[in-house]
């Protein structure tokens, strides 16, 4: 019998048993509860949480104070509360911060989730208990997502509270909804990084290697993809020093945007920018065709309705969910096929 066919049969057997006897919620729940307790009691979580909370609070305070001074004596613009999340004021906004450092949360929570258990000998113990093997990986992933959700919700709530105090403005119902959607997108985004790091912890036996691979993936998506997007766009639509036609410039920008979208960071930044910035009407680059178009666009500066903003970013949200599921699905398949031997 070929080597490849044996583990495939195991997956089939596992799935058949799972569906014939129902989902193993008992095993899943117990693994989930233990993992959640582990995350919240670990030093790495506490350090990460304090770091992120500290940076967010300082950034929010500076933004809030700056906005309050600017808006003194004038009518407050619409969606002023959301500016707390988007204004930079010499540092960086919360949205930028989560886009850049959010991956660290996911990576830190997952890079040793499986190989640590293997090297400690606890994985062979777990799989010899009367629970389905997928309960282990599902429980770990769900516990990671829950930790991420609790962390992000806590930070956004603290920031909102501080914003309320500093700005003295109560958010409108639409602003609250936009913040909730922003949170959901952020949780999906950080979960993608959790999925990536869990995949590495399944693929590599050494914890150091999986940590290195996780950081490598972060650097790849952060630095190399935008860099590659520029190179590809330059090669496909070169712009001479003497200038180029409007079509060439648009083509170049479109290619650059297209390649950049292979990075989850770009997907996340575009999706959240449109949700949290109601006046942003597209995630794409736009170049007015002429003076009349510029005049028209200036006249219609009203913010988008929430439903319209969601429509604009919907493909981005779906893409983020899809890459997260693909990543977890791959981890799941590899984990189910691996033979867990005692060390």
């Amino acid at each position, binding site marked *: 019998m070929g080597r490849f066919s*044996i583990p495939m049969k195991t997956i089939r057997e596992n799935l058949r048993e799972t569906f014939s006897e129902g989902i193993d919620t008992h095993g899943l729940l117990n693994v989930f509860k233990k993992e959640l307790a582990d995350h919240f009691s670990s030093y790495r979580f506490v350090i990460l949480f304090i770091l992120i909370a500290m940076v967010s609070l300082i950034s929010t305070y500076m933004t809030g104070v700056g906005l309050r001074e600017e808006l003194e004596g004038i009518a407050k613009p619409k969606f002023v509360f959301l500016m707390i999340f988007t204004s930079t004021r010499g540092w960086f906004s919360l949205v930028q911060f989560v886009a850049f450092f959010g991956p660290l949360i996911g990576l830190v929570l997952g890079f040793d989730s499986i190989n640590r258990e293997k090297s400690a*000998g*606890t994985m062979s113990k777990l799989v*010899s208990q*009367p629970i*389905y093997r997928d309960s282990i990986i599902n429980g770990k992933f769900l516990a990671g997502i829950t930790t991420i959700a609790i962390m992000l919700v806590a930070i956004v709530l603290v920031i909102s509270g501080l914003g309320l105090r500093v700005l003295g403005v109560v958010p409108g119902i639409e602003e609250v909804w936009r913040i909730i959607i922003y949170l959901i997108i952020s949780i999906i985004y950080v979960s993608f990084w959790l999925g990536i790091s869990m995949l590495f912890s399944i693929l590599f036996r050494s914890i150091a290697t999986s940590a290195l691979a996780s950081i490598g993936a972060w650097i790849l998506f952060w630095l190399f993809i935008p860099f590659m997007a520029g190179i590809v766009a330059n090669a496909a639509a070169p712009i001479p020093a003497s200038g180029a036609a409007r079509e060439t410039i648009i083509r170049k920008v479109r290619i650059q945007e297209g390649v950049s979208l292979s990075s989850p960071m770009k997907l996340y930044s575009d999706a959240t920018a449109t949700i949290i910035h109601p006046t942003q009407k597209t995630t794409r680059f736009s170049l007015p065709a002429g003076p009349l178009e510029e005049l028209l666009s200036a006249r219609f500066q009203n913010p988008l309705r929430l439903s319209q903003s969601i429509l604009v970013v919907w493909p981005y949200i779906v893409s983020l969910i899809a890459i997260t599921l693909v990543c977890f699905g791959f981890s799941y398949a590899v984990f189910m096929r691996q033979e867990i*031997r*005692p060390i």
Partner: protein
Amino acid sequence: MDTQTVIETNDLTKYYAQQAAVDGLNLQVQEGEIFGFLGPNGAGKTTTILMLLGLTEPSKGEARVCGFNPTREPIKVKRLVGYLPEDVGFYRDMTARENLQYVARLNHIPDEISSAKIREALEIVELSAEAEKKVGAFSRGMSQRLGIAEVLIKDPKICFLDEPTLGLDPDGAIRMIELIQSLTRDRNITMLISSHNLDQVQRISHRVGIMIKGKLVAMGPMEDLAKEKLGVGKKKYTLEEIYMKYFYEV
């Protein structure tokens, strides 16, 4: 199948990249016996145990553990079988009691029942005083005994013990051996012990199986094997002599 036979394999085979790790294994273990499972490193003992637990699928043949097929009904098998691997792992930042409680929960044992079971299991392995200590501070001997306690939590019918005395000092090894004997005697737990320590296996086993290069070359009571291979009778042999005879023949 004989009702007394709790482990039975029929032509059980496992290939890794065309290499047979276990080759046509036909094994029977009776209820309530201590079965010494012997063989050099790489003989296929651990692979056999993994197949009997449903943790890896046989390439050919089949196994029955308490009447269940481990490949098709792994959960039913795991409910009845306790497994103590060679290097037993624990969550080092959890106490002994917390480790046992986690295993009890995974075995569908409610907390109100498991607390009494945990207390009893820790008493049996003489670790009651260390119940609230973190496992990270345990010696190897204590960890091995805690491993036995963990196995006992689920009231198993069969235990697979992989090198249970490896790395233990003489006192620890003797205590472990006595513990294994008492569990079989008092609770009728069938033990399958994989070990390289032939003296200890000879002391406690009712029957032995010798596996070399993936094949089971001998199986039966030690007296029968001694008579067959060494031509000597009762008490005039050591298991080491029998084992080496088979080893050199293969």
